[in-house]
């Protein structure tokens, strides 16, 4: 379905149609951020041209229009992740803020000396550092689930780690560096058996996989709009109502209060309790169009197409390896993966490979991908990472494979 409509889809992404270093742009850095369809860009434009007003609490028409559109996005994201009610979806700046919010409110209220928070070896720094900070403050312990050489969690070790001391499991759903899809249903189920809450970092998962928070039964899910074809600076924290209601507020300020006196302040209900100050209204409104875009295309169709791209790439690399005495080493070979692939080239630093590919108009990411502990596990300084999205094509992968062939040959003359 995507393959037969790829020209129409690509026409929706104006940024793709340009040259970089004299070559047509090939954008394979989608795990860092996806490009935006013109529907999103137009919605953003429309908001500032016609609808800009501060939301909630105003009698005038523009404010009421902006409020309606803003709250429409909340209902759209509710449907997108199948939350029980829109109030369980809190707007944040992105996954990082969503996780920090939980660490600083739920964590501060619930973690004590001797308690344990479990993360995994493949976490992004944004799902490590907030927990280190609150664990240090509270005297709680951070424990780390190990992985195997394929880049998969060692579930037996996780099961052994769980105990009555476990208060929270904070786990990445899909690894940004390896593409591994973690068995989150099992992870959640096991955590709940010992009474622990579970937070999922959904940064990478939500653009590739179907999300049903009720079926998953996760307590929190952190989402970023910009990895989902939406604007930067917007994210969502999903939380179960009964959990969110017991949490103290995060930031103090306007919007999050019921009544303020100098003696005492009472707080608003969820989600507003966690949305102090004027939010990123325009970007939240435009985010809805990204969600609609994905929903119309169908997540299964997108995932299916992206996996075809990934397989095509991996097969191409295997062919290059036949000609170059295995110059390219793929990192991350989990059985269950999204269209993200890390690799290294023998005798060449990832940074140099990234520069060489850029010379060909190909955008990839190089470095540690904000997963230094994971790189330490693989004993690497960094990798080259390609990540595919719904607008990428097989012929773009051919361009990449050609460039990699000449780089691999140069490096291993």
């Amino acid at each position, binding site marked *: 379905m995507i393959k037969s409509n790829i020209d129409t889809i690509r026409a929706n992404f104006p940024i793709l149609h340009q040259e970089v270093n004299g070559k047509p742009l090939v954008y394979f850095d989608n795990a860092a951020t996806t490009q935006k369809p013109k529907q999103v860009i137009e919605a953003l434009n429309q908001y500032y041209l016609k609808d800009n007003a501060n939301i909630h609490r105003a009698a005038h028409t523009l404010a009421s229009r902006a409020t309606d559109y803003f709250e429409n996005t909340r209902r759209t994201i509710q449907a997108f992740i199948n939350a029980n009610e829109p109030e369980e979806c809190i707007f944040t700046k992105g996954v990082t803020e969503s996780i920090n919010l939980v660490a600083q409110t739920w964590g501060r209220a619930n973690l004590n000396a001797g308690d344990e928070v479990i993360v995994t070896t493949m976490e992004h720094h944004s799902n490590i550092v907030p927990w280190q900070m609150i664990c240090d403050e509270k005297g709680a312990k951070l424990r780390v689930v190990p992985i195997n050489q394929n880049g998969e969690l060692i579930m037996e070790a996780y099961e052994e780690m769980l105990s009555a001391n476990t208060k929270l499991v904070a786990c990445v759903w899909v690894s940004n560096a390896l593409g591994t899809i973690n068995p989150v249903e099992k992870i959640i189920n096991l955590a709940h058996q010992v009474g622990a809450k579970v937070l999922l970092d959904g940064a990478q998962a939500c653009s590739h996989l179907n999300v049903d928070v009720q079926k998953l039964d996760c307590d929190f899910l952190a989402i970023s709009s910009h990895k989902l074809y939406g604007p930067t600076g917007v994210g969502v924290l999903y939380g179960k109502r009964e959990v969110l209601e017991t949490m103290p507020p995060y930031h103090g300020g306007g919007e999050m209060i019921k009544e303020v006196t100098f003696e005492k302040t009472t707080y608003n209900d969820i989600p507003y309790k966690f949305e102090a100050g004027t939010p990123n209204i325009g970007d939240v409104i435009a985010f809805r169009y990204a969600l609609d875009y994905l929903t119309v295309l169908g997540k299964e169709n997108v995932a299916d197409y992206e996996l075809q791209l990934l397989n095509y790439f991996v097969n191409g690399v295997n062919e290059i390896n036949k000609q170059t005495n295995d110059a390219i080493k793929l990192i991350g070979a989990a059985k269950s993966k999204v269209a993200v692939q890390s690799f290294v080239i023998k005798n060449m630093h990832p*940074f140099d490979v990234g520069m060489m590919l850029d010379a060909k108009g190909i955008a990839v990411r190089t470095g540690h991908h904000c997963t230094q502990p994971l790189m330490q596990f693989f004993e690497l300084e960094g990798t080259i990472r390609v990540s595919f999205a719904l607008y990428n094509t097989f012929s773009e992968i051919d361009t990449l494979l050609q460039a990699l062939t000449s780089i691999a040959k140069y490096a291993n003359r």
Partner: protein
Amino acid sequence: MTTTEIQNNIIENFTLFDGDMEQTLFYLMDLGKKLPPMPEDHKTDTYLVNGCQSKVWVYPSYTDGKVWLEVDSNTDITKGLIYLLREIWNGKTPSEILDTELFFLDKIGMNRMIGSQRSNGLLSMIKQIKMYALAYQVKQN
């Protein structure tokens, strides 16, 4: 040769590639291989200029009023660029180094390599060499 003359020679060599970035990078990497090897015991943290992705080591010395440089990097393109910097500055006086305006990076299309200090040690390295030159100059006077 003056630092300006050396830079002009470098630029002329790169005009062969007519702006072809891939060929430019291959050439840079080849140049990097020509750097005299830096003794491992000089590659210590004291002489490390750290970037997010590429590391650069600069080990200076000062004899007969001139600055001598041992340089190395863990990435090949940066190595090519520091080879060129060494060509320009090795054996020059502190004041020649301090007075140099580096225009060759822009002319060979590599200005973006110094655009982001975070991702690359090159800009920090340029500053570091100028700091060493300044220190030698002060010591001399």
